[in-house]
Structure formats: structure tokens, C-alpha cells
């Protein structure tokens, strides 16, 4: 078995993606953050460091809460997706 990319991994899962993000990130606060643990702790790699900025996309979120617990700057406004949206595990 060869290694999979994160896109391939997440493509295994079933999602009902909401148009609106359930997690809101304040990139200007992240700008000041020297640790940026979100880049490591998000198991779906929803946080990326692009062009000198943290960017976030909610589509692949596994709703685990790792970013919520790890953010040292309170830059994350965390909630669950609206009812019926988000990840839907077939195995779990």
C-alpha cells in the first residue's frame, strides 16, 4: 500500500458539505501567532499556510475539535456543522 495524499484520504469519507463554514478563523490573529499548532493538529489538514497567511477550509473537517483545544490565541470560533451537515461515517 503506498501512501495516500490527504485529498485521497478525505475522498474515502462521505460529507454533506454546508455552504457556510461551521468554524471561523481570524487570519489576522493567526498572523501574530508564532506557533501555529493548527497546522499540525488538524487531522484533515484544513489549515494551510499559504502566501504568508493561515487559510482554513471547512470541507474536509472531521469535527474532532483538535484546533479548538490547541489554538493558543483564541482565533478559532468553533461549532459543530448545522444539523445534517458535515462528516457522516459509514464505519466509525
Amino acid at each position, binding site marked *: *500500500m503506498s*501512501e*495516500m495524499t*490527504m485529498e485521497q*484520504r*478525505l475522498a*474515502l*469519507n462521505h460529507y*454533506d458539505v454546508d455552504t457556510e463554514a461551521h468554524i471561523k478563523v481570524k487570519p489576522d490573529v493567526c498572523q501574530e501567532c508564532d*506557533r501555529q*499548532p493548527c497546522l*499540525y*493538529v488538524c*487531522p*484533515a*489538514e484544513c489549515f494551510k499556510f499559504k502566501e504568508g497567511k493561515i487559510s482554513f477550509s471547512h470541507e474536509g473537517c*472531521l*469535527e*474532532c*475539535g*483538535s484546533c*479548538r*483545544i*490547541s489554538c493558543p490565541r483564541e482565533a478559532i470560533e*468553533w*461549532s*459543530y456543522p*448545522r*444539523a*445534517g451537515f*458535515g*462528516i*457522516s*461515517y*459509514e*464505519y*466509525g
Partner: protein
Amino acid sequence: MVVGAGPAGCAAAYTLAKAGIEVLLIERSKFAGGKNVTGGVLYGSVLNELIPEFWKEAPVERRVQRHVISMLSEKSSVSIDFNTDNSGHPESAGYTVLRAKFDRWFARKVEEAGGMVITGSRADDLIWEDGRVAGIVAGDDKIAAKVVIAADGVNSLLADKAGLGVSLAPDNVNQGVKEIIKLPRETIEQRFNVTADGGAAMHFLGFCTRGIHGGGFLYTNQESLSLGVVVQLKALIENKLKGVELLESFKEHPTVREWVKGGTPVEYSARLVPAGGLRMLPQLYTDGMLVAGDAAALVLATGRALEGLNFAVASGVAAAEAVKIAREKDDFSQQTLSQYAKLLSESFVLQDLMRFYGAPQFLENSRLYGIYPELACSLAEKVFEVDGNPKMTAWQLSREEMKGKISLWQFVRDAMAARKTL
């Protein structure tokens, strides 16, 4: 009213429904279990008290007849491999489960018992009346309730709103990432040497987390394997490692590679597991509300086990029992609901957490994940090596291998600490 159709919420709702009490169980996922992941084994005895002979009807995967604990170095492994024929004792055996199937079954049991289950409904907020919790807000609906049992998981936003939230922090929470790998039933039975309904539960220490605080697991399901790593969030952050990287290298380990060979990954999942033990236990109840399961951090992490499913079921039942008492008195005040804490302290839930109070601190010892698994493998290699040179005794070999890595004094101290906590 119960929020969250996991094992804690279902056990609570089932207990209430069985007693003929009107109960509503709400779940934010489209179906019960759709948001839920496990990295553990369900031990039968607790659920068996609630639903006798549950294994006959519940969608359990395999009865664990083989337990393996392995210590890994980069290329080797040393294992304890326990096999037993426990087919005659299904009530005390452990079972591998897949939560999307299992929780759905459990929620159906709640309905069968007369409870009402609403899925696809997210509890957004609490309704307060005269300083007590009096129901929940779900979208546009306001649902009044005499009492709310919050069993909404490790990220319990409801408990937070009631001021009962667990203070989760990177040093008291572990992150689990898991892959489900599909394999034919016969391949699993031959490869793991298990019977048609039997299975294996394997736990790993060492290289699976590249020596940082955590461990790996491999469970056999009926037609798939659950392979995962569980790592302390703080350790990931400090070492700038990702759970998925550890999962990949764990999967490529020479020992593990053979177990999963030829399988097809079909799902990738993640979750958090509270791991702070008794020290992180929140206030468990307030006027009109109780907290159960992961929402109350009721998980036992001892190094020997990371046990949450049983604790969830038992705490759900205890919360329901406390509600029954409150209902008889028609008094849902904090004082009456304190019966919940009393019931928990009389059960294994708080007794185990008390007994292993020191375990989370013991597990902070980085040698458990680095030096010791390395040492076990290198020692085994020397023991089994025949190179034509005069042989040393096992003791001489051990001392030789420990040289420069760990002092005898340190080793003895760790062993003493292990004796107390494991």
C-alpha cells in the same frame, strides 16, 4: 431529554424509557453513530447488565479472543500474545465494534423501549428558567424538559454553556486518527489465527508514535481492520508532527505491514479522547442538568488500557437512575441530582478513576514511548542472536544494552512507579 446518541446518551435514554419515563433523545448527525469513532474495545459486562446477551443482536464485529501488546523499534517488535477460547463466556469478553453501526442499533433499542429519537437535530443552546436548565434550543425549536442529560461528546458545547465544561487542554487530551482497511473475512481469520466470530485486539508502543506520548492499535472487524494511532495533542504540537504522518509510518512498519497487506483503505477518521483522568473531572451536574460519557471526561487512561465505551454506558445509566430518583421527588435540583455522583462513586467508574489517579502523570514519562520499546527490541535481538562469540546471560545482556541509554537507578524508579499505576 438526552442530547447525543452515543453509548452514554443511548444508555441513559434506554434506562429511562425502560422505566416508562417519557424521554427524547436528540442527535445532530443524520443517523445515530454518523459522527462517532472508536479506538477501543467494548467490554461486555456493563452493557450485558443493561441489555442481557446484547452480543446476540447487536452489530458487534468480533469477540476478542486474542490480545497482543507489542513494543516496536523501527524494524523490530517484541510482543506479549494472549490467546484464549472465551466462546463460552461471551458476557465477560471484549468486542470490537464500528460505531456507525453499533450506535445506530443502540438508538433503535431506545425506540423499541418507548423512547423518542430525533436525528439530524443539533442542540445549540440551553433554555434557562429561574437559574436552572429547563430545556434546549435546537435550530428554531425550543424544547422544554424537566432535566437535560448532556452526552454530546468530548467537545460538549452544552456542558460549557452550563459552566460544567471540562477544561480540555493539549496536555490532557489525546488525538486518535484511524483508518478502516477492508480485507476478506477469510483472510482476517487465517492471518490473525482467529475463529469465525473471534478477533484480535492489538496495542502498540514505541515506533508507532516515533517515540512520543501515545500508542497504536489494530483491531479486527468482520471484514475490515481498524488501524490507528492515539497521541497526546501536546506531544504532536511540541514535536511538530501530524497524526496522519504517524499513522502512515506505523502502517509501513515491517510487523504491521504484514497484518494489513493487500487491504483497501475505505475510511479515514479522527477524534479526541480525554486522558487526564480524575484530575480533569468536571462538576457533573447542576440544577436541571447532568453530564455523562466523554462530555464529562469519563475515560480511563492507564497505559494498560484506554477505556471509554464502558464508562460511557455506566455513566449514562447512573445519570438516568439519578433522574428517576429526582422524578419521584419531582425535584430536579442540584441537590437531588447529586445522587448521580454518589452512584458513580459506588461503581467502577469513579473507583477506577480514583485507583488510577496517578496514571496520567506516570504516562508523561517519555521513556515509555522511546527508550523502553527500543531496549526491549534490541535486547530480544541480542538474546536470539548466535554469532559464534561466547554468550552472555540475559542479565549481562540487559546491562550491556542499557549502557549509555538509561541508568539502573532510573530503571528501578520507573519500575516502581509502574507497579503503583499499572
